[in-house]
């Protein structure tokens, strides 16, 4: 499996993601520069966390105009895998590769902490190592993670089982308290209809080593490595 981690100006989880994939999970992984038009033959494009272009207009809004996004769009259209983490998720929403948009967290503060997530759909290429209903403990770190979509879109997304992860308590219950950023229907991670593009607010690369407080992030990354939807 060959991964390409896109570097935008202002990306700051690019090296962390490369480290998790290459040094922890022993995968072939390279950086992709946002101004290039070259995916270097990767199987999975990862849009990492950070503040691409400072998030100055809206999170992810300027990054969608980066030259490389043309190739990323074509890659996705061909069924190639795309994983957007945090800021990368925001970019995917802005690109229209995933439905919806992000609002400011409900408490209007940046939020960095471990959260618990319930796996809603274990049959995607990004979750095939998980069990349905499994609770994963992975950190978040964002200001704009309050997922929004119009009701009709939400219903569509639910009907197609596109919701992959929801914020839940340690027992897997959906509560208002567990929905830390106020996301509609507690949505923390989504796939597109075809199932080859995923965006999630939590940072799996930050939960890939026991030393850093947990390894549940590997469930996501190793699912991609296993590389098939079951």
């Amino acid at each position, binding site marked *: 499996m060959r991964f390409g981690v896109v570097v935008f100006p202002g990306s700051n989880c690019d090296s962390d993601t490369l480290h998790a994939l290459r040094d922890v999970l022993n995968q072939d992984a390279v950086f992709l520069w946002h101004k290039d038009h070259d995916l270097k033959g990767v199987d999975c494009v990862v849009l990492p966390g950070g503040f691409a272009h400072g998030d100055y*207009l809206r999170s992810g*809004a300027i990054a969608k105009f980066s030259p490389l996004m043309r190739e990323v769009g074509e890659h996705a259209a061909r069924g190639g895998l795309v994983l957007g983490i945090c800021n990368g998720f925001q970019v995917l929403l*802005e690109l229209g590769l995933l439905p*919806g*948009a992000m609002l400011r967290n*409900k408490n*209007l503060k940046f939020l960095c902490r471990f959260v618990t997530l319930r796996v809603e759909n274990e049959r995607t290429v990004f979750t095939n190592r998980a069990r349905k209903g499994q609770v994963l403990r992975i950190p978040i770190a964002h200001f704009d993670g*309050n997922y929004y*979509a*119009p009701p009709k879109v939400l219903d569509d997304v639910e009907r197609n089982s596109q919701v992959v992860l929801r914020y839940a308590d340690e027992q897997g219950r959906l509560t208002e308290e567990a929905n830390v950023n106020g996301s509609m229907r507690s949505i923390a991670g989504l796939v597109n209809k075809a199932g080859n593009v995923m965006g999630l607010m939590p940072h799996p690369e930050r939960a890939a080593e026991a030393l850093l407080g947990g390894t549940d992030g590997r469930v996501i990354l190793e699912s991609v490595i296993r590389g098939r939807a079951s």
Partner: protein
Amino acid sequence: MKVRILVSFKNSVLDPQGQTVKNALLTLGYGFVKDVRQGKVFELDLEGIDEAEARRLIPEIADKVLANPIIEKFSWDIMP
């Protein structure tokens, strides 16, 4: 030519910042404030196009770049 574009949340979208400002105003005794919506203002300084062309391109810029149509709406005017 200067253009001012106002981007704000659609009425159907909850605006937590606006809500917070409203609560603050109510706490301060301005009980007549019924609602607050917060938005962004962009001032564009244009050069080398005429007004008709500007009127055609401004909505395009606003729709494509400045606002996210899923959650935001915009209005604009040419400043005197």
